[in-house]
């Protein structure tokens, strides 16, 4: 599906996308949170940008670990440790590898979800990034089973992630800062679910 070089290319594209959507992600965080999700994510990924030269030629595990550690130490807030540990733990699974197939990718995503749930304790339906991640994961597994090619699998994942993000509008948040507004959060899309959807979208468009 992708080699070490391609992974770096995709990371560059994610960095660019997050920067592009920085304001939008921040706006989403306003009615239900503290108006900083885009700022946080962009600060982290800009820092990843600085690390890119040092990642040339490194294995995929090292790349993911560096991305994770950088996010962990630069994003802060709730999304920092969540995305940080997600990438770090996924990196462990890819240690030493320079190629990644669709099953590796799904393993990474499973690991990421597990890491996020271990830290954040959110289940599906609590209006967090989990509500984009889990449906995406399920949709991709189904697509793989039905024999779809990598591109189609990722596209199914991206579509499911966006649908999940959209669906957070109908959910009352019970985790994270959004839980403070209770019912007033209805109708508002979760910023973390949205940032995850952008990341998966970039991956699906660039594999």
């Amino acid at each position, binding site marked *: 599906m992708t080699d070490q070089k391609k992974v770096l290319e995709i990371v560059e594209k994610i960095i660019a996308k997050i920067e592009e959507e920085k304001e939008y992600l*921040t706006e989403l965080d*306003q*009615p*239900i*949170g*503290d*108006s*900083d999700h885009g*700022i*946080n994510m962009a*600060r982290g990924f800009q820092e990843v940008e600085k690390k890119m030269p040092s990642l040339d030629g490194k294995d995929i595990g090292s790349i993911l670990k560096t991305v994770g550690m950088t996010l*962990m*130490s*630069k*994003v*802060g*807030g*709730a*999304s*920092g*440790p*969540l995305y940080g*540990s997600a990438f770090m733990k996924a990196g462990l699974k890819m240690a030493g590898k320079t190629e990644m197939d669709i099953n590796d990718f799904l393993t990474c995503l499973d690991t990421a979800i597990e890491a996020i749930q271990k*830290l*954040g304790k959110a289940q599906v339906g609590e209006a967090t990034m989990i509500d984009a991640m889990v449906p995406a994961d399920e949709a991709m597994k189904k697509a793989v089973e039905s024999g779809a090619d990598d591109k189609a699998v990722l596209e199914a994942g991206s579509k499911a992630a966006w649908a999940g993000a959209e669906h957070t509008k109908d959910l009352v948040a*019970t*985790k*994270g*800062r959004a*839980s*403070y*507004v*209770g019912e*007033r959060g209805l109708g508002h899309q979760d910023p973390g679910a949205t940032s995850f959807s952008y990341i998966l979208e970039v991956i699906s468009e660039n594999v």
Partner: protein
Amino acid sequence: MAMKKFINKVEDVEEEMTEGLAKAYPDQLEKLDYGTIICRKNKKANDKVALVSGGGSGHEPAHAGFVGEGMLDAAVAGTVYTSPTPDAILEGIHAVKTDAGVLLVVKNYTGDVMNFELAEEMANDEGIKTVHVVSNDDVAVENSSFTVGRRGVAGTLFIHKCAGAKAEAGGTLEEVQAVAQKVIDNVRSMGAAIKPCTVPAAGKPGFELAEDEMEVGIGIHGEPGVHREKIKTANETADILLDKILADIDYTGHEVALMVNGSGATPLMELYIINNHVQDVLKSKGIKVYRTFVGNYMTSIDMAGFSLSLLRLDDELKTLLDAKADTPAWKEFGC
């Protein structure tokens, strides 16, 4: 459009601010090179528990203004309104750790709790005895087992004060943690705002309020509160907050510490007017105010608002509250 703030570059706010604090008290405080971390310059004896707190910036003087003898040993500041990261917290722990152990004082926000817990885990892995407490005094938010619970707000400062005094007095890590928990169990707060705050990186107010509106139950990051309503008088607004607080804990017949906390842009004039009424109400309810703190303790950048915090006291907490604290922003008058 230029933002109406006295700042330089938006991305330098946190660094310059902590530098500026350290430079105001060069003999007492130092800023670490790694991150925006303020520490006591005269390190604590090795047999006394060290206290580390922190959180997003924007709440000045919290938390760095409470670093000093009798309160915190280190304060780790994140970027504005964003929890500091585990590596920075660990750096703060490293700078002040003692053999007696380290207590982390964390405000109950998902981000803060996760980042501090990760740092605690790393510290313990390194053999540094570290525990934490989570403050959650904001009664504006319902506490239920299905949610993340109440937010930590201005009441957190009573933890710094009482647990800090206990540590200075030589309490063990367990004892210091127990004092911190006692404060948490006995302190409740709630706030209201009439003007929003502007995060420098955002450049515009985080929420909007009509000319005649106020937000009741506002969070210290400008998070939406319980509800919005027409502006009321100072006394009526104080009553709304006080009613919620008193409904949560029965303070009748007890002695309390009262904090009338400004949100950053609220003049002391208004805080004194509020205090004037709150003292009368508490008196009429048979609640005796042992000490009052009026001023900017836990702010929300340039928000115009205030919060009330009530701490139910016993003899131990009274002694700890009155113990000497020598920090930039804590002022005991007449103790």
